[in-house]
């Protein structure tokens, strides 16, 4: 790799990080807007999450009496693991110099680090809500992790590598693999996990504050001000990361495989369109869905685990 290419690929990583940080709250707004329009409401517009973040940054952080460093550090840790994933994952370009730092399995673990940081913070508040949200977050994460890893296994087997850039490039080079039964089954399994991990319906309702149903909101109930801003930005980035990963693994077209101004620009545009479209589809499907009770969620996740196991088996038996 010569000097110019290296600097372009470094620029690619920078653009990717800026794009996800700036765009994630807009993605949340877009999904809210889609829901609002389908439900016959006007909606708050695409700028609302950023206006909320700005407002929260000017307020005061509050820590519950008796909480520890864990409560104070959790938002920064969760946000930092999201930024690290965005640095290492191929969202607009596969030429990232950081690709070797974290592969698919490491990215899955980093997603879990973010959930666990907030789950510990929820316990640390000492309120019943915090404990409840924490317990539920951990339950969903513990059951989603196997699906993520096994579906990742199914995808890696076809390519012979678990590095994300290799997976995306292989998908572009050999489009047939994406239409193979293994990939299709893995796509279904991962979609369910994306919904669960991002805290969307029917697993969790991101817009509820009803005590008995909330998961994510109960965990972060005690946060205020800049801390809350970090948590909200982190969860918006989590949504963007999950949709982006799903999009690039199963619709890899448009991701830049060579470093240069043109391919980077194209990659960025395609990535934005892809994630926006997936977000809109997810939001539209949520309009027709109710939240499931907590103890039916494991059934959903068990179903997705089954899909991922089938994906692995078919990658062997049908190849």
């Amino acid at each position, binding site marked *: 790799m010569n000097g110019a290419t290296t600097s372009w690929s470094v620029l690619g990583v920078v653009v990717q990080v800026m794009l996800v940080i700036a765009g994630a709250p807009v993605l949340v707004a877009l999904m809210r807007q889609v829901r609002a329009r389908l439900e016959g409401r006007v909606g708050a517009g695409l700028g609302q999450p950023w206006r909320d973040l700005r407002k929260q*940054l000017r*307020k005061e952080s509050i820590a519950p009496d*008796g909480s*520890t460093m864990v409560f104070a550090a959790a938002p920064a*840790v969760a946000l930092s693991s999201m930024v690290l994933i965005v640095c290492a994952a191929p969202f607009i370009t596969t030429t990232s110099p950081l690709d070797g*730092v974290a592969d698919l399995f490491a990215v899955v673990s980093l997603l879990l680090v973010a959930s666990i940081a907030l789950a510990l913070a929820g*316990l640390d508040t000492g309120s*019943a809500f915090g404990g409840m949200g924490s317990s539920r977050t951990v339950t969903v994460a513990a059951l989603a992790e196997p699906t993520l890893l*096994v579906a990742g296994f199914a995808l890696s087997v076809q390519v012979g590598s678990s590095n994300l850039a290799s997976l995306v490039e292989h998908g572009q080079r050999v489009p047939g693999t994406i239409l193979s039964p293994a990939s299709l089954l893995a796509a279904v399994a991962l979609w369910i996990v994306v919904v669960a991990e991002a805290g969307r319906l029917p697993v969790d309702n991101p817009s509820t504050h009803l005590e008995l149903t909330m998961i994510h909101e109960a965990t972060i109930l005690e946060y205020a001000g800049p801390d809350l801003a970090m948590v909200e930005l982190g969860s918006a980035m989590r949504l963007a990361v999950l949709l982006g990963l799903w999009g690039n693994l199963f619709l890899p077209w448009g991701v830049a495989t060579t470093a240069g101004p043109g391919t980077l620009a194209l990659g960025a545009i395609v990535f934005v369109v892809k994630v926006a479209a997936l977000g809109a589809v997810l939001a539209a499907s949520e309009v027709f869905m109710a939240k499931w009770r907590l103890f039916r969620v494991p059934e959903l996740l068990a179903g997705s685990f089954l899909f991922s196991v089938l994906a692995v088996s078919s990658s062997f038996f049908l190849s």
Partner: protein
Amino acid sequence: MSLIASGLLLVAGATALACAGAALASRISHRWRPLLSGALTCLVGLGGVLAGMGALSGASWSVTMPRLLPLSQAVLVVDPLAGLFMTLVGVVAIAAGIYSVGYPHPHGDEHKAAEGVGSRTVQAALPVFVAAMVAVPAAGNVTTFLVMWEVMALASLVLVLAEHRARPEVGQAGVWYAGMTHAGLVAILLGLVVFANAAGTESFAGMRAASSGLSSSTRSLVFLLVFVGFGSKAGLVPLHVWLPRAHPEAPSYVSALMSAAMVNLGLYGVLRVGFDLLGGGQRWWWILVLAVGALSALYGVLQAGAATDLKRLLAYSTTENMGLIFIGVGAAGMFAAADNATLASLLMIAALLHTVNHAGFKTLLFLGAGAVLRSTGLRDLDKMGGLAHRMPATALLFGLGALGASGLPPGNGFVSEWLLLQGLIHSLSPSGSPDVATAIAMPLAVGAVALTAGLGVAMFVKAFGVGFLARPRSAEAAAATEVPRTMRAGMVLAAVFCAILALAPLALVRSLQRALRALPSIRQERPVHGALELQLSGIRGSMSPVLIALALTGGALLIAFLVRRTSGQQRRTALVWGCGGTRLSPRMQYTATAYAEPLTRVFDDVLGPEQDIDVTHHAESSYLVQSIHYRQRVADRIENRLYPPLFAAALWWATVARRLQNGSVHRYLAYGLVGLLVVLIVVGVSW
């Protein structure tokens, strides 16, 4: 004198001192006894580390002492594989030895030395136990091995029973432990005797040379017998039942030694006999090992997830981690039998690295649990809480251990679990079709590892979050104080060990690769290499633990700094929101039982929790409820299903045997006569 010889000399010297110390114990005041015992334990550990490091650096060493053991001779042979396990035992022993100095006097009050833990027998048995564990891998023939194995078992039994006067459960745990460890010894003894008899020699070198000439049924019989024996020591399901009993009842530094060092010797036995002496063997052996490993990992993690006793939780977590290690070993054996040295060596490195990682974090966790126990008298997570304020150092160190154990970056367990997954996923290559057994076993193994990893995270969030965070749930937890300096020093040492493993696993991988040379069917140079990034030979896959750790912590600090700068406000402390009502009481917090309830309910069919609700009504009216008692107990179902029939059989046999012995001398003489006749007839027929 070589490093190995001087290390072993140190072990021998310190053990002799310990025995002399035990004899002189009546002269030493109980104030100084723990110091002496801890120092000797550290010396033995240091000897183990020196000898082990010497062997790992490539030197080999052996000695024969012809008259030391009756009917046989004592042979010590130290090769790199033995060196790895000796180093591991040594490191754990040094941390536990330092820690044990302060343990009998939790509040620095030497007049209130804890009953049992400070006793002479226990203090003398500690260095002996460590010395036996260092000597087991060094044994070079069957007799030496079995003698050392038995010394290890007996010394640990004495240590488990340390507090038997204070609590009746300790005696129960001791009986279980004694029964299981001796049943295991019988299996190992039978296996090795069959092997040595068929090979015509009892030295490991001779058996190694003769093993290829044995019939395959003999080899399989030997392997199955030793796998049962070593598997029970390693705590594999269904022979794990002694772990959740003995570990909680033993003094905590003994639990650390047993759980982080002794169970590894079970693994050592399987590696030594299966891969080294028997030379790899058949594929179905390793499919069996893989299956038992997967079962242990899943069952262990589920039981640990439901457990509320902190030390019991850690004991089940040992079963889980040994399960993960045996998944790696089994898969490595499968590929070694199929002549795929690349994958076999990668998986074996993953298994060995996980063994070392497990030793590191489990030492730290048990020592941390011991610190809580000494300070509060509590093992029940439901009564803890808020300890982070009162025991900040212990909380931080336990948190680091939990991070390592949960297999999340940047902890040390993450690296080895990642390597294990890489080994398993590359078993199905995109080009060549694997055979059916591999194609079925590997996805299931990945599923088991993945489910174990997910549930393991939940378990350690529960252990750390409920135990140390939020507000105290009992008066004991509220009155906790930080433990003495020596105990903290022991934990810090274990934490440093974990940190090195987490950030620079490659520094260790080179030594592990040298240990693989002792396993002829697996041996391959450099399956894992790289500087900053972990690269795999012949496989595309890389990950950089040190960069991930740096980016995570650096990023978090930077983000926190930037947010503070932009908002410019301090964090204010306020009351927890109580739904507009009065202040929440600590009793309203989630307990460990409540925390694990969703997962317990999801895995209802496996765990089978027993629930009990007592509703007491007011005397005046049955419509008014006075109190509700809810109890939940998660029993070990495998234990309850499998063992009662065995006990019943043993009791039946005891009853029958009692009829034989009725006190009549005439009948005893008749037994003697009949016995003699039978022996004569058998000898006459067979000659």
